[in-house]
């Protein structure tokens, strides 16, 4: 690697590390969210939803595989997708804190999914035209999946929010609890800013209004009330996580940790 990113030839170590870290953030958000959805298998409210959530999960894990493989190549330390997925500890995971939040009830899962789907929709749509052609190709594949994901989750959001008094109350509660993780979605740090400056990644503050508009539209249709935006910024994408990620990783990584190199 890697001739795919235009500037790769003469880039410095720190730049490459920032690039790698940026790709890891995308990868880990998809991986962790995919793992969360997989926890529903066998437990969804209906057989059809079970398959629906499994399909979303597989799409997300598929995105994570492409992104992790690429991150491993950028890192240049010989780590492949499996090493990155199964042999890193929580502080090395760069996913959005929202992605690792527990499934809760079905409304919780839907609200979390919808917030991230709508985020990914904006991110991938811009990344499709990234100066990094490899990332652009991954985004081009992912955006088609994400359009369906957002259709699925926004459909459920409206159905639950504008449903029975109980489903409305549960969905509003999920929104109230998860909303505090949303500032992280569009608050750039120095890596985001650098990647945006070199034309690889979108400028997050420019995407935020588009996300807010779409989210607002869906919330109105769902008769839900957007909570006040909280001041506390989470930093999952910097490796500072809520208490939930460790438990998720313990389960996800158990097999590889116990039987290193096991294949099946």
């Amino acid at each position: 690697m890697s001739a795919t990113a235009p500037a790769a030839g003469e880039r410095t170590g720190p730049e490459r590390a920032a690039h790698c870290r940026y790709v890891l953030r995308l990868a880990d958000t998809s991986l962790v969210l995919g793992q969360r959805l997989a926890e529903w298998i066998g437990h969804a409210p209906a057989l059809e939803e079970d398959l629906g959530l499994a399909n979303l999960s597989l799409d997300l894990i598929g995105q994570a595989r492409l992104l992790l493989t690429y991150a491993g190549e950028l890192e240049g330390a010989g780590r492949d997708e499996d090493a990155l997925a199964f042999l890193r500890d929580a502080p090395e995971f760069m996913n959005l804190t929202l992605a690792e939040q527990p499934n809760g009830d079905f409304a919780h899962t839907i609200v979390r999914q919808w917030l991230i789907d709508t985020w990914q929709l904006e991110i991938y749509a811009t990344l499709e035209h990234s100066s990094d052609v490899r990332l652009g190709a991954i985004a081009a594949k992912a955006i088609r999946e994400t359009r369906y994901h957002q259709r699925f989750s926004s459909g459920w959001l409206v159905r639950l929010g504008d449903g029975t008094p109980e489903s409305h109350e549960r969905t509003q509660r999920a929104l109230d609890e998860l909303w505090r993780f949303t500032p992280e979605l569009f608050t750039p740090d120095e890596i985001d800013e650098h990647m945006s400056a070199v034309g690889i990644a979108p400028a997050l503050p420019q995407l935020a209004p588009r996300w807010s508009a779409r989210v607002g539209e869906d919330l109105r249709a769902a008769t839900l009330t957007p909570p006040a935006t909280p001041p506390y910024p989470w930093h999952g994408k910097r490796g500072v996580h809520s208490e939930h990620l460790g438990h998720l990783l313990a389960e996800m990584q158990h097999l590889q940790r116990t039987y290193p190199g096991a294949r099946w």
Partner: protein
Amino acid sequence: MSENDWPLFEVFIRSRAGLEHKHAGSLHAADARMAIEHARDVYTRRQEGVSLWVVRSADIVASDPEEADALFEPARDKVYRHPTFYAIPDEVKNL
């Protein structure tokens, strides 16, 4: 909520452009949009189709099995309704 609360839908899939929609099975869904999504998730995971129809099963008018004899039996001895009943003259190349 159990899926038994949801109405039943019949799913039809068009496997390729130009072909007709064919019945693929049925599923439960709360509304038409969910039925399309369920049909996509349950019946088109392996590229089975390019178009979907869903119809509420309750909206389908079906023939009564009790009347099967009256409806279908009379066609049994009308073999002349099959094109293979007729000998095709050798001069006819394309039919």
